[in-house]
């Protein structure tokens, strides 16, 4: 455990010295802060739009951090041969890989926390501004409320349930981070980036893929009935079903988010978290399996 912590903290140190991280973070914070301005364009609930935009920013930029920072972490160790001295130390390769994972995850989560703080401030500020408060006083009050809100999740009515959503988002990012580590344990940064983004998109569209498979099956059944022939499930059906079962069901996480924003209730999250933990563990096991027998350059 000590060894994993040492590697994780070292990875975190490395990641926070990476400039890409700050570029991504600045973009995210800008989007979150300007969501109030953008929300004036909507004809429906302004607060809902601010929340949607904020969550989208946290989620997408969280993924961006996991991908852009994560895919080069393991690769750099191999490329710069720093792994040589690590492997000769009394630590297992699995500990190295887990250390890398948790270090990256820590980086992602710390950034989510920063984005969340700005998000909470943004929500409180816009609520205050809508109630007609002065600029300076509203800003000060919203910063105070934002900070307090990080600790006391349900302290304020407008941000009720939002922290649950953040937890769910963190879990979703844990899966994406695991994929970034998995791919980077055997391929180049560019390929890993491509694979990780692809997995994220496919994961988000998971339910659509299943629906697509159902449609294909439906059509095949109709055709079989019309021709009075026995039903053979087409290749496209098996392919889609296979793909849907291999990629993570990130749609489930998204459902938790929409539930919190639009229905103001949070019932889905415990199951989703459990699913996330199990799925992440599976992916990490696979990554360790590949990495532990790998020949380094």
């Amino acid at each position, binding site marked *: 455990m000590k060894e994993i912590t040492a*590697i994780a903290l070292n990875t975190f140190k490395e990641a926070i010295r990476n400039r890409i991280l700050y570029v991504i973070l600045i973009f995210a914070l800008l989007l979150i802060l300007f969501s109030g301005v953008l929300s004036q364009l909507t004809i429906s609930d302004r607060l809902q739009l601010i929340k949607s935009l904020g969550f989208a920013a946290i989620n997408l930029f969280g993924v961006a951090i996991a991908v852009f920072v994560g895919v080069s972490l393991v690769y750099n160790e191999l490329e710069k041969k720093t792994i040589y001295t690590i*492997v000769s130390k*009394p630590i297992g390769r699995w500990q190295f890989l887990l250390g890398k994972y948790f270090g990256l995850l820590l980086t992602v989560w710390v950034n989510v926390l920063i984005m969340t703080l700005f998000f909470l401030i943004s929500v409180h500020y816009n609520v205050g501004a809508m109630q007609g408060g002065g600029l300076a006083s509203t800003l000060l009050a919203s910063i105070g409320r934002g900070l307090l809100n990080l600790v006391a999740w349900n302290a304020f009515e407008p941000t009720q349930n939002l922290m649950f959503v953040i937890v769910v988002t963190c879990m979703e990012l844990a899966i994406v981070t695991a994929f970034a580590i998995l791919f980077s344990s055997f391929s180049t940064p560019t390929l890993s980036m491509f694979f990780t983004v692809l997995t994220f998109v496919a994961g988000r569209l998971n339910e659509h893929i299943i629906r697509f498979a159902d449609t294909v099956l439906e059509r095949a059944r109709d055709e079989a009935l019309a021709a009075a022939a026995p039903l053979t499930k087409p290749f496209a059906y098996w392919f889609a079903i296979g793909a849907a079962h291999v990629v993570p069901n990130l749609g489930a996480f998204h459902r938790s988010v929409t539930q919190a924003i639009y229905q103001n209730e949070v019932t889905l999250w415990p199951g989703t978290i459990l699913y996330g933990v199990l799925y992440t563990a599976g992916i990490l096991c696979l990554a360790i399996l590949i990495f532990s027998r790998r020949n380094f350059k």
Partner: protein
Amino acid sequence: MGIIETEGLTKIYVRDVIDTEFGRLRIRLTNRKTVALQDLSLDVQQGEIFGLLGPNGAGKTTAIKILMGIHFPTSGSARLMGKPLGDREVKKRIGFLPENPYFYDYLKGWEFLDFYGQLYGMDKKTRRRKIERLLDQVGLTHAADRPLRGYSKGMNQRIGLAQALMNDPEIVFLDEPQSGLDPLGRKEVRDIIVSLRDEGKTVFFSSHILSDAEMICDRVAILYRGKLQSLGTLGSLLSQSVRDWEIVLRGVSDEFMDRWRPRLVRLEKSDGDFWVIAKEEATTHELIREATAAGGVLIQLLPRRESLEDYFIRQVQGSPEPRGAAA
């Protein structure tokens, strides 16, 4: 029984996209094969300085990488301290400095060593004490608070050496520890290696700088194109017979030396002194006798034996053509 033993160690590199193994299942996307190491059997004794020598691309680094668990051998086996490779307990008792080390350059010298100390599971107090001592030993105390990014090549090599000694290891593996260092730096590394042996540690190092190896090694193995050419103590490998004699004479006339010229291998004059190489012992004695009789003075007489470099060239010249062996 040796502290390091290898038995028929062979490594064939395959340039590939994916290369991973699960027991008997092997997944590989491959194209080109290179034999980097072929049937290497070694036996290194406790407490000796063992030099793995050979030109670039001879397979030295490959052998060390296999011993360190960075690469897996294609065939053959190896044992460290009687245990198979990769044993955790053994890893606690060895140190390793890779070739041309590149470390986490965002870390400061101190942080860097502290990180490695943590990997050995050392507590904070032990780490602090150890780091202070090591920085002093490698002469980097003044640079402890500077990021490695700003270190020179020599400083990098020294902090790498400190890293390899963090756990007070029983065996130290050093891959080309002197490459890229100036003469003074090389001497410092040499001194550290000798002091390690004096502390009872075993040092296994690779080098292509033969003169350095000659000065400190108890035994050497010479690798060439992946194959072991010879193995043994320097005394047993190098011919003990005198190859030729180096003589320096003063106060003899040019005519006198001109008469001797046909019987000498070389004859040169500088600052009034004659520098002479003679092949035969008898010729040497006769020359000295006659020169002193003619009023000359013998300044220097040196019997020259075969150096490791001579031996190496002799070995290598008899070897077959390369197959494009890798490092």
